[in-house]
């Protein structure tokens, strides 16, 4: 049972890091978004430190969306998705493993890049640690929610834009609690753990809802 899970995970990781994969592109896009914003809002260090966590979170959300449209479409285009559905394995688990590998290849690099980019935004060390922790706990939720959008738009050519429109409203709760947990760490009277635990709960809920919804959509998409 565990053999095929490992095989799928390794295949997805290889595809993500080799030529044509989306692993590095996400981090570069994240870098582009975060470095452009100080030019837009001006060199006010206090302002940057205040909105810094929000900028990092929005950057992470956009960078995650960038790579998600190929999550199932690449496999559909070359017929591999049909074979996966016929392979005699639970499709929900296939989706979960694909999401996990996708997050390892695109989400985790964002988490590692966040502390470096946070320095650009004049965040203090406590805030850097808080933002990185919230991104680590929250970006899996973005990938899993995005998988629903990716599976719904899998039959469409250039479905990436529609996917973003579908996914962004669903990702708003994650964004709210991610940013508020990071802000809470900076401003003393508010507890950090309350919004952070809700963020963790959102990730766990999307780990259940995401694969089931995406698998249902994929079954209807194969015709």
């Amino acid at each position: 049972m565990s053999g095929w899970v490992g095989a799928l995970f390794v295949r997805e990781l290889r595809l993500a890091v080799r030529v044509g994969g989306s692993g590095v592109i996400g981090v570069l896009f994240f870098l582009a978004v975060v470095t452009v914003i100080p030019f837009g809002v001006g060199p006010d260090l206090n302002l940057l430190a205040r909105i810094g966590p929000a900028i990092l979170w929005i950057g992470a959300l956009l960078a995650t969306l960038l790579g998600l449209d190929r999550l199932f479409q690449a496999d559909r285009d070359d017929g591999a998705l049909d074979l996966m559905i016929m392979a005699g394995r639970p499709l929900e688990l296939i989706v979960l493993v694909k999401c996990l590998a996708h997050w390892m290849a695109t989400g985790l690099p964002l988490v590692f890049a966040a502390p470096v980019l946070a320095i650009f935004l004049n965040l203090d060390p406590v805030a850097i640690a808080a933002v990185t922790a919230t991104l680590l706990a929250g970006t899996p939720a973005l990938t899993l929610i995005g998988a629903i959008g990716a599976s719904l738009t899998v039959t469409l050519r250039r479905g990436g834009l529609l996917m973003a429109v579908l996914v962004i409203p669903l990702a708003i709760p994650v964004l709210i609690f991610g940013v508020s947990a990071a802000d809470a760490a900076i401003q003393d009277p508010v507890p950090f753990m309350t919004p952070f635990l809700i963020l963790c709960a959102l990730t766990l809920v999307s780990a259940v809802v995401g694969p089931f919804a995406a698998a249902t959509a994929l079954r209807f998409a194969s015709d």
Partner: protein
Amino acid sequence: MTGPNGVGKSSLLRTLAGLVPPAEGHVRLEGGTEELTAFEHCHYFGHQDAVKPALSVIENLTFWQAFSQSVTPDGFTTGRMAPADALDGLGIGHTARLPAAYLSAGQKRRLSLARLLVTPRPIWLMDEPTSALDADSEKRLIALMNGHLLSGGLIVTATHTPLTLNKAQKLHLEPARDHPAEVPA
């Protein structure tokens, strides 16, 4: 299975493969493994090769062997073939370490065919299996198909060229005369 273009040969194969829900009726398999559905006994060999250009040839094949569940009901005697042996048997063993992006169309087709050999499943659903193959590979394909039939397997194939198979039954599809527009592609 023969018939003119657009008569529904591919649709019928995809329905048997469980990829398209039938408009009415159901697909049932007698003599299979009980806890599996009919389409989990099948290999689908369609027009698309499911070959990832970024992975090497052997990585492509090893993945499908590990991923697809092998099904061997009573009366079907085929073992798992090692990926390297399957590639050698199809004449593309020398490409094993190359990225699949470098393969020609016919070689990709043969790599896709190797997938049917490394995971034993009793039913092969093949959609124009000889397309993109040269005369030599076509002979090899026919030999493989006959070998599969001999070991107790079953093949449903759509074709435009006559295949010299043992024990073949022919199903010829014709478009319905009164409602030709309603026949699905």
